């Protein structure tokens, strides 16, 4: 009797197992970097973070998708014979939203770890400073690319639903996507570098807005004046100084459906491409140097 009472009375015993060692599998550098990349990508859109941090990226994304949805609706209902706006042209029209998205979200990836000094915890782990910096940069590149590509793909689907010529639309979309890749690498590099230097988020956003939106406005003004004064060369050279003028200049030269005051021609097209790649590469190297230096402090 008493034995059974003891047996039933004490079933849930908590055992302190003490410290247990881990001898399971450990992932290699590639898998760790991939994990950092996807975490970074999610964090840019506020996923896996507080509810408040989701508001801005999704608000901007919604604002940049909405016109595309309207265009698709009009196209399908009215049966237009062509898209009222080209894919590259759409990106050009929404450049304010794209710039704001890059400026506002780059600090998520590039300021936080440096400001709170959690960067030392990352750098005391297998990923080296260069791999860390490049992985962070790729997260931002892909998130900007998603931001620009989603409306393009929506327009493309709408165009196919409306029965427009598939090969025309496909080649036009692919041109636009290539230009978006170049654009995203530049925007991510510039905003990332600015955010990694000015650690206060406000300063980083203002600095990025200056570098992207204000500079782009100045370049467009110079190009307009150069065009009116018949000195095209000045306008073409001015176009080298902003990622947006590089993007739209190349789109014009490539026949992707954007018109600028002073489109580059001949060897200038190559120069535009090279300068674009150079900006992206220089910013990437700048980020590597910055994180290397921070790690040593």
């Amino acid at each position: 009797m008493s034995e059974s009472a003891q047996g039933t009375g004490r079933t849930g015993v908590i055992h302190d197992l003490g410290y247990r060692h881990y001898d399971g599998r450990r992932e290699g550098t590639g898998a760790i970097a991939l994990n950092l990349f996807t975490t970074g990508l999610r964090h840019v859109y506020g996923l896996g973070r507080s509810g408040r941090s989701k508001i801005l990226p999704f608000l901007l994304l919604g604002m940049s998708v909405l016109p595309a949805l309207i265009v698709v609706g009009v196209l399908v209902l009215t049966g237009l014979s062509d898209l009222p706006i080209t894919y590259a042209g759409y990106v050009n029209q929404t450049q304010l939203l794209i710039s704001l998205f890059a400026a506002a979200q780059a600090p998520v990836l590039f300021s936080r770890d440096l400001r709170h000094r959690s960067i030392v915890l990352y750098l005391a782990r297998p990923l080296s400073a260069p791999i860390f910096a490049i992985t962070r940069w790729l997260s931002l590149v892909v998130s900007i690319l998603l931001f620009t590509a989603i409306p393009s793909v929506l327009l493309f689907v709408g165009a196919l639903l409306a029965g427009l010529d598939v090969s025309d639309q496909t080649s036009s979309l692919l041109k636009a996507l290539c230009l978006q890749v170049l654009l995203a690498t530049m925007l991510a590099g510039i905003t990332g570098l600015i955010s990694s230097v000015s650690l206060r988020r406000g300063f980083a956003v203002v600095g990025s807005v200056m570098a992207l939106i204000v500079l782009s406005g100045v370049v467009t003004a110079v190009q307009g004046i150069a065009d009116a004064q018949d000195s095209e060369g000045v306008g073409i050279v001015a176009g080298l100084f902003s990622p947006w003028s590089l993007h739209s200049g190349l789109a014009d030269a490539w026949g992707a459906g954007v018109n600028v005051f002073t489109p580059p021609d001949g060897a200038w097209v190559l120069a535009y491409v090279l300068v674009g790649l150079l900006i992206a590469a220089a910013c990437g190297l700048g980020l590597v140097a910055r994180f290397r230096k921070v790690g040593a402090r």
Partner: protein
Amino acid sequence: MADVTGEIIGQASVIATVGLTKHYGTVHALTDLTVTVGDGVTGLVGANGAGKSTLIKILLGLLEPTSGQASVLGHDIEQASQDIRRLVGYMPEHDCLPPDVSASDFVVHMARMSGLGASPARERAADVLRHVGLEEERYRPMGGYSTGMKQRAKLAQALVHDPRLVFLDEPTNGLDPAARNDMLRLVQRIGSEFGIAVLVTSHLLGELEQVSDHVIVLDGGHLLRSSATGEFLERTGSLLVEVIGTATERDRLGEALALAGLACRPRGTMVAVDPPPPELTGETAAYDIIRDVAADLGLGLMRLQPDRRHLEDVFLDGAAHV
């Protein structure tokens, strides 16, 4: 020099450095440091700026030494720093926690950054947070933590991937006495019960006396001494005597002891009796003389004890040599 490193690695020491030097321009952070560190808890003592953090950063591969070599867990710091960083944990001195993330989420993320899969990372994080003593608060953002809780969270991220060696840089910084004792007990457990080698720095010698098996003393980037903690605290052979009364009584005792053949000098309110001469080495001979002298003078003996060294003495000795 390469042979020397090879030899030291052959002894399977946890850390071995040979002639390690780091100069920042004219600032000499570390100069020609040659030490070995074994299992258990090793204390690294020195004033601020003595080169403790610099040494840890060089061993982690975050800083390049100006010259010299070092190996950690058998890996050379220059050729295999990535392998080293897989096997060690690091708790920095300064604040390094993002305020808007919970300790639970952060430690899981850090486990993944060390190469653990998703579910082992969650299990290990929960385990380690329990060991360091973060209970329900682990689900709250770390910005609202007290210093003690932050230190625990920092320690948890250093242990989550089950390293073979942890570098703890000033883990008791900013803690109140109770939290300080908790942290020191935890450090001791990591070295013994968890079986993880520990290199712990502090500028407080007394702390490391309590928990370390071995102590390395740095001063201005130079190695002052490296030996087992017991050796630092060994008996010096001297005796300390205190009698009731003031300095007058103390001096009367001192003079009488000198007449009786025991060399001695005043130290504070006490008389320090030098190690007795060879003819008095019998275990109790010196004690008997002191007792008799005090009785003859009619002085009340208050204290009679063997003198032990303190870690502080190492600095005094070192300063005398330099």
